């Protein structure tokens, strides 16, 4: 699985070098780990437009969230997928992504290590960084439809994996809601 997603990454890089009409957007969103555990995500998106109706967005997300008594997550991942617009400005999208997730233990009383001799000392909250493949679907509106610069409002459920964890991988679900606006 790891190698399949590494292939996806290479795939993404290749496609972003294609020439076509494109726009660059920045975005910001609420990121809810299992919906309610709050966080935020910043995104930078290069959207290659192949027609009025379809585009190939390449997106880099930088996000952070806190799941109390579980973990905090800091991630950087890249996505590539398909976005299709309706005349009304409504759009849907799908993308697959790959990135790095750095998790930190979240327990309000901290992390401890107990030595061989029984001495207790504070430990690090940091887990090892994990690979973070993901699949994201999305719905949204282009509020400035048919104008020069786009402003998009969107809702994106994201399913992502944390690999390796507990000898295998664990999976998470998140909902992102935000907007992005065209820089150029």
């Amino acid at each position, binding site marked *: 699985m790891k190698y399949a997603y590494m292939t996806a990454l290479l795939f993404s890089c290749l496609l972003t070098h294609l020439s076509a009409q494109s726009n660059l957007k920045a975005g910001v969103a609420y990121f809810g780990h299992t919906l309610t555990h709050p966080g935020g995500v910043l995104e930078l998106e290069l959207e290659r437009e192949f027609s009025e109706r379809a585009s190939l967005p390449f997106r880099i997300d930088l996000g952070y969230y806190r799941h109390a008594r579980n973990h905090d997550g800091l991630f950087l991942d890249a996505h590539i997928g398909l976005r299709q617009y309706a005349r009304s400005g409504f759009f849907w999208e799908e993308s697959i992504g790959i990135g790095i997730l750095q998790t930190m233990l979240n327990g*309000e009383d901290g992390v401890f*290590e107990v030595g061989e001799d029984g001495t*207790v000392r504070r430990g690090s909250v940091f887990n090892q960084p994990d690979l973070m493949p993901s699949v994201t679907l999305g719905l949204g509106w282009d509020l400035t439809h048919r104008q020069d610069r786009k402003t998009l409002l969107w*809702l994106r459920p994201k399913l992502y994996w*944390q690999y390796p964890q*507990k000898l295998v991988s664990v*999976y998470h679900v998140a909902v992102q809601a935000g907007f992005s606006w065209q820089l150029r």
Partner: protein
Amino acid sequence: MKTHSLLLLLCALIFGACNKSEFLTEGDYFHLDHNGAKLPVWVKGNVDSGVFIITVHGGPGDSGHEFPLSKGFKYLEEDYAVVYWDQRFSGLSQGDPDDSNITPELFIEDTEKVVELIRHRYGDPTLFMLGHSWGGQLSAGYLGRDDHDQLFNGWIDLDGSIYGALEAQIMKDWILEQVPGKLNEEGSDKAFWQFVLDWYEAHPAPDNYTDQEPYFFADALDGYAYDWERTQELNPVPYHELIFSSMFSLAYYVSGLTTDQSWADDLNFTPELAQITIPSLLLWGKNDGAVPAAVGDYVYEHLATPIADKRLVKIDECSHAPHYDQPEIFYQQVVEFVEQYQ
């Protein structure tokens, strides 16, 4: 209008996140980092009592976070501090520790570190250990070595394993004793019960953990929950809070102990039992099919605790989890024991 709707949705999400449940507010919550695994520890209940019950969960691969969902442990928390924690590769534990050396000793070492941490953080309180199922076996392994039992005022063995090969046979007897009745029962799934007989004929000496079929057979005989509907009524699961406002995440459903469990098959902690001398309460469901009550007899017989300080209680209309099936009796027995020996 669209913008307003989205803003309202965002507010609802943020409000939902701020509305914290008892899972996020009650007790102390911290992690133990040991040998590559990050083990969550939740100390909940009446800390001021100065009496701490350190639980050891079952499986291998289940979670200590299941205990506080039961009514039995909710009652206990009113009187004592209860320590819930997840073993490596299990429940809400994190990290990706080395898998090349999964041994019972590693789990015993984790248990030892949790105990040391509790003693250190709470000023050497009065300690009891409570192990359930596989946790019973693990706690026996821990208490019976290096005089660990002397750190505790008592041990509560709740339907606990002890000797894998023996248990597999006891479990077989328990199952086969009931199959003829099931075969003759009107409307029963005769093909299934015949399959059970055939399976045991083909597997006369099953492994305790590697062979999974006996656990399904035991479940079909209500060996896990005596009356599932009643158990659910007694212990309603707060799904909304668990999903949206608790420490639980989907990672909970992934156990890392998914491959070879033969390391746990041949475990025999009978020699460790012979080293445990502290007061002990052996609490068993009479209808336990996973670790049948006859295992309780075996533990009672081999435990070195003086007769006056050990007791075996078998509970009617109760299977593998007395804290779910018979929470009042569970609570009453544990409180009586703790009050006597604290």
